């Protein structure tokens, strides 16, 4: 890893999510809420369509940080608010989530704070997405 300072930008990451990815994540995470795979149920609860698991978006945004770190165990704290859904259409293209991150603070205890932005359709889908990482 190169020199890390306040303002250092993480290599951006762009991830495409399809319905198949939602089914796979449902199985892996054991979150089988039908709003993540069933159009009818999503519609009944007033959603604009089938939406991605917030925790999937959060996991993708975590990857932005762990790709940069190399050792995922160096990500010690990680949190986010789910402020807007990622709507995943029933086609081969899916939804595209754009992830960027920036070092906001380098602390004396050898950790740093990284602020993450996750955008879908040009709008932020995660709020206060913050990772605290242990620097090598």
């Amino acid at each position, binding site marked *: 890893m190169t020199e890390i300072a306040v303002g250092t930008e993480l290599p951006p990451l762009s*991830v495409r999510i399809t319905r198949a*990815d939602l089914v*796979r*994540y449902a*199985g*892996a*995470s*054991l*979150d089988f809420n039908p709003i993540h795979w069933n159009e009818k149920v999503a519609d009944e*609860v007033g959603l604009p369509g089938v939406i991605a698991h*917030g*925790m*999937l978006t*959060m*996991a*993708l945004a*975590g*990857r932005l940080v*762990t*790709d940069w770190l190399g*050792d*995922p*165990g160096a*990500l*010690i*704290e*990680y*949190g*986010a*608010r*789910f402020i807007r859904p990622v709507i995943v259409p029933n086609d081969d293209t899916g939804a595209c989530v754009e992830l960027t991150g920036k070092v906001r603070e380098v602390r004396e205890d050898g950790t740093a704070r990284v602020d993450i932005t996750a955008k879908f359709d040009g709008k932020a889908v995660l*709020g*206060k997405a913050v990772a605290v990482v242990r620097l090598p």
Partner: protein
Amino acid sequence: MPLDPSYAGHAYPRTEAYEVGRAKIREFADAIGDPNPMYRDVEAAEAAGYPDVIAPPTFATILFGKFSLESLVNDPELGLDYDRMVHGDMSFTHERPVRAGDRLTVVTHIDGIMNRAGNDFLNLRVDVDTVDGERVVVARAQLVVRGPE
């Protein structure tokens, strides 16, 4: 019916153990499209100083769903309407990464209940420890239960 704020402070009994397997870690990593070798390759994990493959930072969401949400939904005293519930936020504070071979148990605490603008906000703290009592991760979550339209 709104949730009762005086239920804050309630904790559910420690759960049975969940044994973290290499195959589950790999399945989870595949599902988030993350090729990091530390999730798959024991030698790569060992080279980084871990005794076995480690899990992605959000892996404990499995325990949150399997144990914490189950406890809440099946608690008639709480009266949570699952169909109106959405996940507001989530965070994980790791003492160390979850890893294959861990036998993890969970205690779910209701830290706070607020009624605001017709919605209920439920703040949870989930302690994830090994069966030997080693703290591995603390997850915090806010669930929002939307009031009737």
